[in-house]
């Protein structure tokens, strides 16, 4: 158990360590001549106005909600797909009806315009 997953953990540590080293090197080696002008954000040469963390389009939330619904479908499909050749007709019919029910929901959202991006 440990021997199987240990290499993954080590790779995770090494990978993120490399990323952190790059970031620290960048902060440590770079020049430091900071001015107030330099610290303003880019806004096409204008003086930035208001906070950038304002409200944004609700469409992004729609995409996120649809993503969760269909991602759960994908997660349900995976164990079934891996065991597919060992499972019988019952599992086949069960999964097809699951996909069918989701397709009904998909068509409903399509007709309601949930996927439209004007």
């Amino acid at each position, binding site marked *: 158990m440990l*021997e*199987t*997953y*240990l*290499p*993954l953990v*080590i*790779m995770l540590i*090494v*990978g*993120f360590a*490399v*990323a*952190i080293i*790059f*970031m620290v*090197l*960048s*902060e440590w*080696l*770079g*020049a*430091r*001549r*900071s001015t*107030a002008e*330099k610290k*303003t*954000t*880019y*806004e*096409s040469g204008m003086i*930035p106005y208001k*906070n*950038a*963390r304002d409200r*944004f389009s609700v*469409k*992004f939330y729609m*995409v*996120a909600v*649809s*993503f969760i619904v*269909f*991602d759960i479908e*994908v997660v349900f*499909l*995976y164990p079934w*797909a*891996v065991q*597919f*050749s060992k499972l019988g007709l019952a599992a*086949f019919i069960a999964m*097809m009806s699951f*996909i069918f029910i989701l397709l009904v929901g*998909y068509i409903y959202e*399509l007709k309601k315009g949930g*996927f*439209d*991006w004007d």
Partner: protein
Amino acid sequence: MNEIIFVTVSALIKSIAVVLCIVLLSAAVSVYIERKVSAFIQNRIGPNRVGPFGTLQPIVDVIKLLFKEDVVPAGADYQFHRLGPVLSLGVAIVVYAVIPFSSPFMMNIAGVDRLIQFGIAPNINIGILYILAMTSVGVYGITLAGWSSNSKYSLLGGLRSSAQMISYELSMGLAIVGILMITGSFSMNDIVMHQQGWKINLLLQPLGFIIFLVSAFAETNRAPFDLPEAEPELVGGYNTEYTGMKFGMFFLAEYSNMAVSSAMICTLYFGGWMLPFSPSLIGLHENTLALSLVQFAWLLLKVIFCIFFFVWVRWSIPRFRYDQLMRLGWKVLLPLAIFNVVATAIVMYIIK
């Protein structure tokens, strides 16, 4: 106990070797290929000053970026601003852990014969899940970078990018389901082993391959889908407010992601390291170092061709509009991917 020490040491050596030789080198090679191919397509010469044919250009770029000033905007959330590039690059690196680079070879270490395989954990039985989980974490890096900069362009770029990535992740995940059904395993190595000879998954899953390819382009935020960094509208996208190596880390992450996507396309659909003929045909035996090296070279050849393909597409196809991108993801690829799953299931059930 002895076994655990061996696993730890070998994994440590392998992961450092993979990070240094493959991740950073593959990013450098991808950058070089990108610049040379784009120069060729645009009838320019491209980098030719540093090193033979300009091959050292990416390394010089990294050194330059390291010595650039690190500017953080005044209103930025400092810790999240630092976390963004770390997450992006870290995730792009650790995905390499489950990709198999060759078949195992026999080696005598401290008096014990052991089977060693290029690749850190290619036999792990959650390979595909691990890759999907990691690419999901990659979305956070970009979203955080966009949000924390306190710049309108960054925020819009980050939002666009995250919406695009989660939309295409679905089709990507569904396209792999067909392969999982054929192979019956999550392990990347099992998927390669299943494609013995000419039985590559490309021939069994042509529709799945096209869906996966398009989704891979969108996932890596590359060309025709490079909306997050659409210069005319968003300046630079989520990395507008980044300077120095922190900007370079996003750059490295993009190219590293491109290389890892190419490696995944080759592993899942083109047979990975599996040679298209019996190894005895060229006088090599199973479980020898020479055979492993030949298989590694064969995989590398395919990966480089895939990277070339990525670059080729970038400089040939104009960018999508955002509503076109969303329409393609949700109204074309997603139904096609579901159809692919159902069709594969029915065909496999009939054959069985």
